[in-house]
Structures are given as structure tokens and as C-alpha cells.
């Protein structure tokens, strides 16, 4: 599907298939078209081209109020003129569900989101996290085909954000409901999702499981967007058995991958996969090693961030557990090792 605003292609030829009961996350920087994509599913933005189906049923031709999606808005959009119970019952009333059933279903879903006793409260009496739960309950109660969540946690403080994300994931698993979740926070996406779609400028960069997105990014953009990485550019100097030998400045790296000799490639090496070697320590078998000068050191408690200078022009970031800056500074030159299988090579 596609959606344009004038000349801006907010969603550009995106094709996705999402499984029943899957927690699917749209991840990307701000302005990449996540909200637009979600809103086309809900029906608040028209498609410029393409189709949307739930199972066999085509829904992009339906008006938004007949699509049976449940959307959780970034600012919750709780009706201020209705009580918590009234908010949750709103969608059921629209569906002409009998009064007794409404009561029962509202009570059930409020219990689910731990707001059993809040039915008669007014929205202005609730905290941010509680409003968030009302917004979710209000959607769950109508048993939507799909739950749509647009950065639902971005208005909460950091601690609550972590709690709520676990809670949302648990609810989704318990009810086996299909959820499409929009966020720009990669940690949130990794923690919650069954699959993640990374978007950039309206296009899909990669769709995969969290661990694959992180460990085997399909493009340099994905590699850099998912956490920190060292993105280096070099030339293929030849092969060493299965591995490629890639020359970066004076240093040569071994990496698993496919590319022709003399080809210019880039590759990603995550900081936490680089291991510092103690004096006299040898690298594990199959690993590559190099020597470097110590750059800046940043002590963050559990981990220490280190910059290593190789040759004149190559800088590598390393994240090490349980190292003290003073120890490193005493050494002068530093030896380090890496696993060639943890390097991802990008051609071109």
C-alpha cells in the first residue's frame, strides 16, 4: 500500500502480512510514516494505492467506524465527559449490545487491566498509567480484529514505561489478540515484539524477529538504528577459508559473508561483541584480534564504554562489562578480539 501527502510519500509501497495473534511492531525514526501506516489501517487516512485485508475480508473500502479496529492513541483520548465505565462501555453501546452484557463485559475487562474498582471514577481523577489502561480496556472490550497502538507509552515516565510495556505484552499474550504497535524506541520494540518492521522514509527496511533484526540487520540503517554499532567501510582483500578478509586502513578484519575480491563493502560490528584481551591472553579459536591505542573511556557503572584507535583513521567503540578505567589506562596499548561470525557485511 501507499499513502502520499502531496509530494511526500509518507507510506511508500509497503507490503506486510501479519499473523493472527502476533505482536507486530512498526519501528523507525520520527517522520518515517509509522503513524500514517497505522492510521490507514484504522481508516483515518485514505490509501493512495493498495489494499488492506483482515483475513479474506477487504477493509480499506469500509468507513473507519465499521472496521472493528481498536486504536490506542498517544494521548489516550479518554472522553472527559464519561466515567471510566462509560468510556469502556462506549464501543459496546455503539454496537447495541444489551445493557446486562455491557455491564458484565465492562467489569471483566476492567478486572483484566487491574481497574476493577475504578468504574465510577472520572478521567481527571486518574493518573497517566491508569488512563493508559482505560484506553486499552476500551479497545479490548469490543474484541477488535486488531489492536492498534501509536506510541502509547511515550507520555509516561521512564519507570512506568517499563512496567506498562510488560503489562501490555502480557495482556496481548493472554488474549491472543493481534496487535500492531508503533514506536521509535528500539528497546521497547525488542522487548515486546514477535516481529519488528523497521521503516525509513516511508519504506520497509527489514521485517524480522527481534533477535534477527539485532544480530543480522539487513541494511546499515537498521544496524545503526538498532542500538549502537561500529559501521566500518573497507575493501575485500581476499578470502581466508570461509571468511572474507576486509581491509580497513592498515587493519584487516575477518568476517562471514559474501563479496567479490576488490569489492568495496561496509560492515557492522557491535561494541559489546568485542572482547578486550588481558596482557598475554590469546583470543578464542576462530576469532580475529587486533591491537589499538586507548581513546576516551566512559565509566557507566555496570558497563564501561571505550574508544579504541586503530591506525590513524579508524575508531572502534567497545562496551565492556566490569572494567575499571584506571586498569585500562595503565596498559597503554590494548589488545582486543572479535568473532567474525558476529560481523554483518553489507555490499555496496
Amino acid at each position, binding site marked *: 500500500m501507499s499513502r502520499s501527502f502531496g509530494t511526500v510519500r509518507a507510506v511508500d509501497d509497503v507490503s506486510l502480512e501479519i499473523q493472527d495473534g502476533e505482536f507486530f511492531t512498526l519501528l523507525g525514526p520520527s517522520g518515517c510514516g509509522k503513524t500514517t501506516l497505522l492510521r490507514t489501517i484504522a481508516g483515518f487516512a485514505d490509501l493512495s494505492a493498495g489494499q488492506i485485508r483482515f483475513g479474506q475480508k477487504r477493509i480499506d473500502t469500509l468507513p473507519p467506524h465499521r472496521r472493528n479496529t*481498536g*486504536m490506542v492513541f498517544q494521548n489516550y483520548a479518554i472522553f472527559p465527559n464519561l466515567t471510566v465505565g462509560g468510556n469502556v462501555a462506549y464501543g459496546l453501546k455503539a454496537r447495541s449490545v444489551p445493557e446486562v452484557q455491557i455491564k458484565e463485559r465492562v467489569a471483566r475487562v476492567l478486572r483484566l487491566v487491574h481497574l476493577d474498582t475504578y468504574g465510577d471514577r472520572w478521567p481527571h481523577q486518574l493518573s497517566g498509567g491508569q488512563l493508559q489502561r482505560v484506553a486499552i480496556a476500551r479497545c479490548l472490550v469490543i474484541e477488535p480484529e486488531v489492536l492498534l497502538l501509536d506510541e502509547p507509552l511515550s507520555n509516561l515516565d521512564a519507570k512506568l514505561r517499563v512496567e506498562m510495556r510488560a503489562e501490555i505484552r502480557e495482556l496481548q499474550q493472554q488474549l491472543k489478540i493481534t496487535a500492531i504497535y508503533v514506536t521509535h524506541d528500539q528497546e521497547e520494540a525488542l522487548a515486546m515484539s514477535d516481529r519488528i518492521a523497521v521503516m525509513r522514509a516511508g519504506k520497509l527496511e527489514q521485517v524480522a524477529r527481534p533477535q534477527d533484526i539485532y544480530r543480522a540487520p539487513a541494511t546499515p540503517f537498521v544496524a545503526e538504528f538498532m542500538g549502537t554499532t561500529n559501521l566500518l567501510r573497507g575493501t575485500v582483500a581476499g578470502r581466508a577459508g570461509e571468511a572474507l578478509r576486509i581491509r580497513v586502513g592498515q587493519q584487516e578484519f575477518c568476517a562471514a559473508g559474501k563479496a567479490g575480491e576488490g569489492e568495496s563493502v561496509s560492515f557492522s560490528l557491535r561494541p559489546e561483541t568485542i572482547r578486550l584481551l588481558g596482557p598475554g591472553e590469546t583470543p578464542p579459536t576462530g576469532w580475529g584480534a587486533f591491537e589499538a591505542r586507548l581513546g576516551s573511556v566512559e565509566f557507566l557503572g555496570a558497563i564501561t564504554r571505550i574508544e579504541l584507535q586503530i591506525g590513524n583513521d579508524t575508531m572502534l567503540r567497545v562496551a565492556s562489562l566490569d572494567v575499571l578505567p584506571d586498569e585500562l589506562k595503565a596498559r597503554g596499548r590494548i589488545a582486543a578480539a572479535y568473532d567474525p561470525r558476529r560481523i554483518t557485511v553489507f555490499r555496496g
Partner: protein
Amino acid sequence: MIAISRRDTFPLAIAILAFAFLGLFLLYPLLNVFGASFLDRTGTHFTLANYARMLSSSFYLGSLSNSLILGALSTLLTIVLGVPLAFCLARLPIPGKSLLLALASLPLVLPSFVAAYALVLLLGRAGVITRFLRDSGIPFTSIYGMTGMTIVFTMTLFPFVVFPALAAFKAIDVSVEEAGQNLGSSRWRTFWTVTLPVVMPAVLAGGLLVFIDVIESFGVPFVLAEDKPILAVEAYKLFVGETGGNPASAGVLGVLLIVCTAIALLIQRYYLGRRRFSTAARRAPPELVVKPWLRRLASVYSWGVVLIALVPFFAIIVISFMEFRGPVMHPNLSLDNFRDLLNQSWRPLINTLTLSTAAAIMAAAIGVPIGFAITRFRSRISDLLDVIAMTPFAVAGTVLAIGLIISFNSGWLVLTGGWLILVIAWVVRKIPFNVRASAAILHQIDPSLEEASINLGVSPLMTFARLTVPLMMGGIIGGMVLTWVTVASELSSTVVLYSGPWATMTVVMFQALESTGAGVASAAATVLIVFTVLPVALIYRLLRRHELGMM
């Protein structure tokens, strides 16, 4: 994408209904006024003779220049008076500020021709003060003409400048001023070079409202102009004149009136609209610490201006309880004036109450959906709707009424002679306010609430009716009350359109003005004042001041 998507059907339906209403009762009548001014005596051939005739008459040319001079003078004076007042209210400690603000907004809803009439009763030829002065040997002629009109307009219209300027003074980020002082500018210089330029667009916007209001005013010049010709009054006289009426000549003056107001409105829209400084205040400016004498001076000035503006209204209430023998007032308390007023008939009072209510309901029923379409659906249709809904603002009540009569006194739809034509004229005149007010309310309601409702399965139409309207209710009621009080004392189109049994309270007062029934006129004025102040006081909490500023 030319195809109209389903989402557009709702605003499109609103737009079609609104276009139909405004087309029939605003644009079509205006077209007929234009037509009348460009047609010869037989009504079939295009001619410029009417314009040539009117513009070569020094009398009617004088009415044009008088109106413009009056507008300019009043605008200047309201600004000179209003800006310092706004500054005092925004930045200085004035005792009783919230009461003062409430009182300051009253002149916007009180009928200005009542103030004019009060001035006549006090300072006119046989006025109370005039006679007192004359008896004590102090030379004083009288208040009629430009002086009197300018005084009344300044006294009743200054809030148009004060409230926007007050908002602007409050919206200034203090750091801007501090930056000015930090760069070595004195406080006084900072005010002139930094503060004032920032609030100037708001002041000028208010000033243009004053200008338009003065040009369109019928009642004040009717009472006070005496032998000075004024556009709106001459158009009225030409149209209903004793010699049978002259729609062509009245049409020419009507067109001149519209041209003046339209130019002012266009300046407002396109020049000021762009020059508005963004005033996203991070820190609201604190009250200034000033020397006690300056604080006292500011308090006296602020309270003085506001109270003096209300004096005419107090005076007329007092006068209405005095005994009148013919045109001469005697200092004895009496209820005779009210008895005389109601002895004639209760009908005018009942007409005012019922017709104003009908108009207020209808204006809201039309204005709220238009405001909704304009704020929630940005498209070329809604932009056009916005422009058309603001058009009544540029059309003087006199001209609209003339157009309505030309259009609907014969043919397939006859409205003259009934009550509906009054209500329609009032509704058309109040649509800009109703649209603006509901747009202002809607700006404070998050659109995602409506999306949430639609997403939960409620259709857009039902969402509007069951969610949006209830959320807007406080504001809608406030707007309806303001509409009610202003149409209850509407004069300029009413005096052209009323007929026989459908005379209202303003008509009774108007007729009493023309004859010598000063007692009945002041009693009618008191009734109008009570009907204005009471409802506004009752719902003051529901109103926001900027709505008053939009009347």
C-alpha cells in the same frame, strides 16, 4: 486526487447546507443590492447613472467622508484610550481587577444607541446637564454631530481594542523585554521599541473592528448626527423615505458601505494575519513593581475609563424612573414610563423574547456545524466556507435588510411582513460570531477524541452529535446567550424589516425617539439593558472573554 472520499461527505453536507442558507439569505440579497444600484429606472438596463448622480451630490459624498472620518477618529481614540488601559490591566497591580475586567466587557454587549440616547438626555438640547449649565450661566451649546458620535463610539467600542491588546501584553515573553534591557535599553525605551511593536498587530486588529463597527452603525448616528449626513442613516432614509423609497440610490450607498468595510476586513485578514508575531510565552510577564503614585494613577485611570463608559447606562436607568411631563423631566420617582411602555402593548416585549430565542437557537444550529467543518476538515471547500461565513461581518445591518426586502417582498418566496425575516437577518448577522466562537471551542478539544469514538464504531455524524456537541456545550450555551442579548437590542436591520405586529422592544424605543416620548424611550432602554446584563451576569462563568471580544 479529485475523487471525493467518503470521509468528506459529512463536511460536504454541512457545507452544502451552509452555502444554501448563506447563498439565499446573504449573497442573493447582496447581489440584489448591487443590482439595484447598477440598474436604470426600468430595472432592465445596466447603468452607472446612479453612481454618477450620488457621487456628484455634495450631500451624499459628504455622508461618505463623514462616515470615514468618524470611523478613523473613533478608531484612533479607542486605541489611545485602550492601549494604556490594557497595559495597566496586564502589568500593573489594579485593585478589583477581575470585577473591572467583567465591567469592561459590558459595553460590547450593551446597545450603543442607548448610550447615544443617554447622552442626548444628559447633554442634548433639553438635556439635564445642559439645562443645569445654562441655568448657572455657563455657555454650552450641545453634543450633537461629530463630537457626540465620536464620544459615544469611543466609550462603547474601546473594549474591542482593550481585550486583544491585553491578551498580547500578557502573551509577551518577558525574556524579550529582559533581552532589550540587557542590551542596555531603558525600561521606557524597551516599552516603545520592544513591547509596543509586539502588541501592535493585536491593537490594530482591534482597531479595525472598531472602524467597521462605526461605519456600520445606524443607531448612534440616527440619534446624534442631527444634520450631519452619515452613510448608514442616509441609506436607510433613502430606502424607507417618505417619498416612496429609492432602492437604486439606497443601493449605491449600500455598496459604498460594503466597499469601506470590505477593504477594512481585507486589510485585517491579509495584512495583519501575516504580521502576527508568534507569542508563545514561556514565562508570563509578572506585574511590574512601580512607585505608589504611579500605581494610584493607573488604578484611577483604569476604573475611571470603565466606569465612565457605563455612566450613560446608569443614567438612563435612573432617568427611566423619573416623572416626565411631555419631553420635560421632573425629579420625582415614578413608574409611569414603564406603565406607558407596556400599556401600549405587551407584544413588543414578547416579540423580543421569543424572536431573539429563535434566532439564538438557529444561529447556533448553523454556526456550530460550520465551525466544526472549518476546524476539523481543512480543504478548499472549508476555506471557502470560512470566507463566506465571515462575509456578514462586512455587511451593515441596514444594507442586509434592504437586500432582504428587495429579494423577498415578491416572487416565489415572500418573507416581508412576517417575523421570519427578522430572525433570518439576525441569524445571518450573528453567524460570524457563532462560527468563530465554536471554532475557538473546538480548538481546545483534541481531535483524537472524535477519532477514538469513530474507531470504537460510532459513525462520524453520531460522534458529532453525541460526543463533540456535549463537549462543546458550555461554550455553545455561552455563545447562544451572547447572541441572544445582542439580537435583542439589534436596531439597524430591525427598523428596516419589522412590520405591524412584529415590532420589538428596539422598535418601540426607536419610535419613541422619533416622536417625543423620552419617558417611554428610556423605559424601553432600561428593559433592554436589563435583558442584556442579567443573562450575561448569570452565565459569566461560561463565557470566555475573547468571545465577548468577538461580538
